[in-house]
């Protein structure tokens, strides 16, 4: 958390000379993009080991996810939930709150939205219906964070455990809701389908719905929250030094509750946008499990909601193009998870080496440096 660049920090380099400012940018770029490049290279080696052609695989990924018009549209559409879940995680993480229960918050919100949407959109003007459904998703997502937030704020209970546990319960409960009260007419356990006229508007001639713009707007709003507002600054203080937050007179239990609920609300909004924008119904066993895949991206973006945008696009390409490429290469779809895991691994490594260099040490282990001198 410590190297989250707060909005107020951003003026920090003004006194520094231009070259060191450049170095800061280059450093940030290396730390953000480096892990992805390394993960893709290592993924390529893994592909070669299992007898697939890495070049062809990545070529498929790019073709299906980026260069084909339909793929590009899907990719852009996919950024919407990633940006919203990411914004929710950024809000929590910057305040030092580890909301790892986003899957439960997302699915529960999705279940309520998918259960209520078909009937609601049929009975009110669609625009009002969309707004109501957005609020429904946000409310459910926020509500599912109240217990962990209250336990953490009041009793200091570790929120990593409580959010994870609540997530398991939420995932199960969402399936129960879809099988029970929200079950539709179909023989498989799934909700009724939203009428095509009720789905979010697409841009003219493409399959990109207006939820993408909502997600971009929310990203900008979260960025602004931390860069400019007192509320964002309070969250940043809490994340940077919780004891200083108490000392400075911030009402910490209340701030924890509000932050958690905002985080859950944004994740619930992601669910609403996905259901009303793309999927139109929810099956009982459906779970896109964005949460843990988005976490590494959020850190690569250094908890900056605007910097999250390119990473969301990257995620879109990898998941849309990756689905096609893995099918063509006859690999399980989980290969994408391997790549995400590798990104996480190299991120930690880059961070470690970067920290080491900032402490004035060489990037090379001492022994090998000696060896190279003697060679």
């Amino acid at each position, binding site marked *: 958390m410590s190297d989250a660049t707060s909005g107020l920090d951003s003026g920090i380099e003004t006194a520094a000379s231009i070259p060191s400012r450049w170095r800061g940018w280059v450093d940030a770029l290396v730390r953000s993009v480096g892990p992805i490049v390394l993960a893709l290279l290592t993924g390529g080696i893994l592909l070669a080991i299992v007898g697939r052609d890495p070049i062809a695989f990545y070529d498929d990924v790019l073709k299906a996810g980026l260069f084909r018009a339909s793929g590009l549209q899907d990719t852009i559409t996919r950024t919407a939930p990633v940006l919203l879940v990411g914004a929710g995680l950024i809000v929590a993480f910057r305040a030092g709150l580890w909301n790892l229960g986003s899957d439960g918050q997302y699915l529960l919100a999705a279940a309520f939205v998918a259960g209520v949407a078909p009937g609601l959109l049929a009975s009110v003007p669609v625009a009002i219906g969309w707004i109501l459904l957005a609020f429904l998703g946000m409310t459910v997502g926020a509500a599912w964070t109240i217990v962990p937030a209250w336990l953490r704020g009041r009793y200091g209970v570790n929120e990593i455990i409580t959010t994870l546990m609540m997530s398991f319960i939420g995932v199960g409960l969402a399936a129960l809701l879809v099988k029970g009260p929200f079950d539709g007419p179909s023989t498989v356990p799934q909700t009724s389908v939203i009428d095509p006229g009720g789905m979010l508007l697409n841009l003219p001639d493409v399959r990109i719905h207006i939820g993408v713009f909502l997600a971009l707007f929310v990203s900008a709003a979260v960025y602004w929250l931390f860069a400019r*507002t007192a509320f964002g600054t*309070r969250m940043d*203080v809490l994340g940077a030094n919780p004891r200083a937050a108490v*000392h*400075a007179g*911030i009402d910490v239990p209340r701030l924890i509750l509000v932050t958690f609920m905002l985080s859950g609300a944004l994740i619930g909004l992601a669910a609403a946008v996905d259901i009303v924008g793309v999927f139109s119904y929810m099956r009982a066993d459906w779970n896109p499990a964005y949460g843990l895949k988005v976490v590494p991206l959020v850190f690569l973006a250094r908890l900056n909601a605007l910097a999250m945008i390119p990473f969301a696009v990257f995620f879109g390409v990898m998941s849309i193009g990756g689905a096609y490429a893995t099918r063509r290469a006859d690999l399980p779809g989980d290969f994408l998870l391997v790549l995400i895991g590798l990104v996480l691994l190299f991120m930690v490594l880059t961070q470690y080496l970067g920290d080491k260099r900032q402490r004035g040490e060489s990037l090379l282990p001492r022994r090998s440096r000696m060896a190279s001198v003697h060679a």
Partner: protein
Amino acid sequence: MTLGADRSDVAARRTTPDQLTPTVELIEITKAFPGVIANDHISLVAMPGEVLCLLGENGAGKSTLMSIISGLYQPDSGRIKVGGNEVRIDSPRHGRELGVGMVYQHLSLIPTLTVLENLMMGANPGIVLDQSSARTRLAELASALGVVVDPGARAGSLALGQQQHIEIIKALWSGSRLLILDEPTSMLTPQGAMELQGVLRALTARSLAIIFITHKLHEAIAIGDRVAVLKLGRVVGTMGPDELAAATPQELQERIITMMFGEAHAPDAQVAELREPAVAGRAVAVATAEPLLELVDVSAVGADGQHGIQHVSLTVRGGEVVGVAGIDGNGQRAFAEVIAGQRRQSAGEIRLAGTSIDRTSVSARQRMGLRYVTDDRLGEGVVASWPVSVNLVLKRIGQVPYWNRGSVDRSAIDTTARELIEEFDIRTPSPQTRIGKLSGGNIQKAIIAREVAFEPRVVVFNKPTHGLDVRTTHAVRERISEMTRQGVAVVVISSDLDELIDVCDRVAVLDAGRLVGIVKNGPGAATRIGELIVGAAAPVPMPA
């Protein structure tokens, strides 16, 4: 040569001191960090059987130098000789193997383990702990130090002075020839400091070399066989045994101050060091002033195993400085936090200028003019990774003019920051510098600036000058007396008795969370307070 192994050196020193090999010799050590040369061609020798006192302001480069000797940092250039042989100390472990033992300013014993367990944890390389040989070693070292140690006592139950003895034993555990002590007396009572002197004498008698880092001139003069003064990374003066023996403490003090600050500053620094009480002539005005802070029978539970406070009653009037003395951990923190509003009181009432503030939040108390200068500067006082400017308004987040309708006004923050930096003489490259990069003294100046600015009525200082150099200490004390002239009520919590005598009108003593007495400052006050601190005063009547 390990401790206790060789006593012939002592005899050798007495006869032909010049032929001795230095235990550790630093030759032209240079170490630079981005933007600052921490050590600039420093040469020093630590001789066996001698205490080398290292004096210097915050940021003079003492810590860096010690980190180089102990193997934590590598010098950019320069050589280190241990026992006459040139070495490259490339890790703290290597440093220990070469016989460099280090005792840090903050004690690091694990309070729930016994003394013996703490020592075995630190030193034993194997998996199985060898109790009996550890006991033997402990007994050996305890007798070398001239102290009595109960191996089975829980470390947390020992007094700080005793804990420090254990730290020293830990540093000497696997055979040391050089012991480095970083500001060892900063946590100790006067009695503890005296005991430590005895311990150090016992160790030098066994031809151990000691480097003693301190801010306090009188300690350096009392303890040191050699004195070296560091300033801005350079050695600006040294004094050998002959020179130290030839002059009176008074002369030495003046000479050292001149080295540290140059001729011009000598009178300045003397005020803080020679402790001419600044309180005379204030008492008359105080008696008639309004009570600004009243504690009536206040109790609160402590945190982290420290004492809370029980039934504390105290009144502080405008223009008055009331000290709170006591050994660390006797309820000082709970006392301060209850007043600041960070800790809930379990009983009693607190009034600010006659109004009860029991249900008033921290930030509301802050706005009402009740300020708290915490002793935990980096832990809770500042956000270390943030700019000085934002830290200066940390307690005013969301308030005008820095935030208007919830949106930040950076230029307003910057303007105020520049004013405070100027007024409080905070040495920082710019208001945007991360505050954690500043020296301890400048961080403290920033915290004081934040609390004292904007019309304070009551200010609680918790260890205001702990760890600060002479000049900054002087500035802080000046600030306190200036505030009292403006009618502010001040509470100074400190474990430094000299400080309390220097600035306070009255001194209350906390012992195990209870106020055991209030002493009016004047002749004999120090003795009386000291007695109350160590519980040697007439027993307080027990309630029936």
